[in-house]
């Protein structure tokens, strides 16, 4: 493992992608980033561009209008990358899930479009649960970084 990979694991940068939803998970995610629960002590920092990120944190179910943006943002994140889906909407579609007929406006979970590495169910998950999910994501990031070489 090179020095860059080692550094990446100790300070993974996180991009928060809000796909669509009620904002509950976003509030909890921001609470996890803010001083009270403080993921920054693990070196995780919120970045404004997916091009700087290692972890893509998605919340909410994907509306059909948003499908191209999700794909594009996923492709913009440089390798190795980890996707963490936060909330019941991002995990399984939650209230918007329909077997048949399919929902006319909402696709559902982003894992239908992009590979999701860690699921954090909850409506909305507590900040501690999000921290747990992100830390599991870091372990996966380490795995992916070591595989690349």
């Amino acid at each position, binding site marked *: 493992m090179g020095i860059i990979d080692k550094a990446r694991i100790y300070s993974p940068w996180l991009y928060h992608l809000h796909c669509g939803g009620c904002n509950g998970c976003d509030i909890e995610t921001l609470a996890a980033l803010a001083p009270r629960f403080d993921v920054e002590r693990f070196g995780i920092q919120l970045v404004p561009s997916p091009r700087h990120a290692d972890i893509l944190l998605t919340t909410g179910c994907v509306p059909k209008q948003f499908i191209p943006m999700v794909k594009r943002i996923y492709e913009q994140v440089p390798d190795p990358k980890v996707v963490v889906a936060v909330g019941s909407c991002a995990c399984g579609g*939650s209230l918007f899930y329909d*077997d048949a007929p399919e929902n006319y406006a909402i696709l559902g979970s982003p894992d239908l479009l992009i590979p999701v590495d860690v*699921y954090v169910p909850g409506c909305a998950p507590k900040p501690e649960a999000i921290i*747990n999910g992100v830390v599991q994501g870091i372990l996966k990031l380490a795995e992916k970084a070591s595989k690349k070489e």
Partner: protein
Amino acid sequence: MSTEIKILKQVLSNYSKPMTLNYPSAVSPDRKYSQIPAGLRGIPERDNDKCIGCRACYFVCSGRATSIYDSDAKRKVEIFLFRCTFCAHCQEACPEEAIKMTDKFEIAVAKREDPSARVVTELDLLKCKICGTPYASKKFVDRAYERLMEKIDQKVKETVSSDFKKVDGYCPDCRRANGVGFDTHTKKHVWLEGA
């Protein structure tokens, strides 16, 4: 007034110690979290002995998380936690109080098929003696009989009990088709024997 004092205490403590909560908790080794609010609804847990497979939780589930799979001789009652909104409607609706919301909330998993993302109960199904289709779980019928006997008047207890035993073992359709006949001689509805 007490809330104001509480707020004041919090404000003053922010100057004396850091407000960041420890994770995992440093309060004591057996407590994992620094703070769990009272009445937190975490993941639901089902008591496998108490559950009778009556489908009440399935009908009230708001997020379509609860599903019921009937195979040949087994009924599988399942809560898929990826879709669960932790609304506790199933806890409210459960007639046997089998479902309880716990205060566990850390269930980050890597795969959809992970067994920890599902709350599963399996029950035996009864088969109809005539057509052979499974119609209700054994526990459900037993418990229905028990509750009927608890509530009913003493005078009619034996009649109802014998009537219940007569139709026991048939699915609702077969019961309707074969159970009751019209006796043209006495002009009364009668139970058909051997149906």
